[in-house]
């Protein structure tokens, strides 16, 4: 077979040609007899497309390799009478010949090129690793965002502070005891003069802002609200919320502290574990608010 003769024994291309041939025959027999072609194939010229034709022509008219002693390919007899085994084989052989520069031996798909059939190993596994890492990172990020959002919602659900009325003379610091009794309508938070209210009917809310206590994470300030002399609510005016961790810690701590204050009706409450800074500052601010309330004449505090 003419195609074989241009290839050295053991050439990968030769193996490929033989495989193609076996596939055509539908056999798996590896012992294809050399020299004889089981099925002679002569492609009718009419079915050759332009490219195939050009390649065949190139193959026929390509300059022949100069004979070399070592690793030499058998010279190709440019005989149009010996047709290739199959169209694929013809194409392969023609390509091989057409690519071959003048004066050089044919360079079959051999060695490194043949071995590097799957060349993108690093890029492939890099892409896979990156994809998995990104997925894990996104899952973590989503979970983190979600927890922070939940914490923010919990904090937003906490009671808000009401405006504290002060006299014009007194400086508007949170620790200032209101000179006139501040009366705040708890529903509308409109400050009304105490005299205009029928005292026993409308519940009177008195609000006192505690001191601003600085912690290393930010300031803490509470507001105590008294209704008819008892602690009815404790709002947080300020708490550390500058970062996600603080938000999450305080979302857990502040509702607990509030419940404790309402239950104890005093500043004698337990710290929330894991929120020591906030708890201590909270208690201090709370105590200062209670002191103000006492000074304002509210006595029913434990």
């Amino acid at each position, binding site marked *: 077979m003419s195609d074989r003769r241009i290839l050295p024994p053991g050439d990968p291309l030769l193996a490929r040609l033989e495989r193609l041939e076996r596939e055509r025959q539908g056999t798996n027999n590896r012992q294809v007899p050399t020299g004889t072609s089981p099925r002679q194939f002569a492609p009718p010229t009419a079915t050759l497309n332009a490219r195939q034709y050009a390649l065949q022509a190139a193959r026929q008219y390509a300059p022949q390799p100069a004979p070399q002693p070592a690793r030499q390919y058998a010279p190709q007899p440019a005989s149009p009478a010996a047709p290739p085994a199959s169209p694929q084989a013809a194409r392969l052989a023609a390509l091989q010949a057409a690519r071959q520069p003048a004066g050089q031996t044919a360079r079959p798909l051999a060695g490194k090129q043949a071995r*590097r*059939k*799957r*060349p*993108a190993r690093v*890029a*492939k596994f890099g*892409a*896979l690793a990156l*994809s998995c890492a*990104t*997925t*894990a*990172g*996104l*899952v973590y990020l*989503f*979970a983190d965002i*979600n927890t922070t959002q939940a914490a923010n919602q919990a904090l937003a659900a906490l009671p808000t502070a009401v405006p504290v009325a002060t006299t014009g003379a007194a400086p508007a610091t949170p620790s200032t005891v209101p000179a006139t009794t501040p009366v705040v309508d708890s529903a509308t938070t409109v400050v009304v003069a105490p005299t205009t209210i029928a005292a026993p009917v409308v519940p009177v809310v008195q609000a006192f802002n505690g001191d601003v206590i600085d912690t290393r994470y930010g300031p803490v300030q509470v507001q105590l609200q008294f209704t008819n002399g008892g602690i009815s609510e404790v709002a947080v005016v300020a708490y550390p919320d500058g970062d996600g961790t603080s938000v999450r810690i305080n979302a857990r701590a502040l509702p607990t502290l509030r419940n404790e204050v309402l239950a104890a009706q005093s500043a004698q409450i337990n710290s929330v574990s894991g929120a020591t800074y906030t708890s201590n500052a909270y208690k201090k601010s709370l105590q200062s608010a209670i002191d103000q309330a006492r000074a304002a004449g509210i006595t029913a505090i434990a």
Partner: protein
Amino acid sequence: MTDTQWWYITRATGIVATVLAVAALVFGFFFSSRNTGERRRPAWWLDLHNWLGGTTLVFTVVHIVASYLDRNSGIGLLQVLVPGTAKNASWAITWGVIATYTFAITVFTSWPRKRLRPRLWRLVHLTSVVGVALAGLHAFQVGIDATTLAFEAGLAITAALAVYALGVRVLALLVNRTHQG
């Protein structure tokens, strides 16, 4: 695993699958463009392309399984398989379902590629381009994160990349036609 955790996985794998699909598309177009042009096309581009295509399908499947396991998503077997059956965001999910079909067809016709006629194979293969566009639309419409700036910026960048690769491909086609006369 809770519903919420499956939900996170749905979102994460959806985003990664979209990026992978665009990467596969880009390498596919780049590789084919070199084919028609005169420059050498590195074999590893095709190899990487095939890998990215397969990985896209894998991440898409994980995405779908996760959305199925998240009981709040409203995605059941019917919604996964039949376009237009989802109650919430019906159109958006429909795009996702169609995109998944095109990816699956593309991947599973590429292994036995040699058995198909080249023109037919390419026609089938190119449906994945529509699939990528639909996946992008799906992500934009249904994604909870689609309202965030980072997500939209990322989607815009991947879309631009895909359009660029398409441009390179079409240009190569035109140049090649002109050269051949």
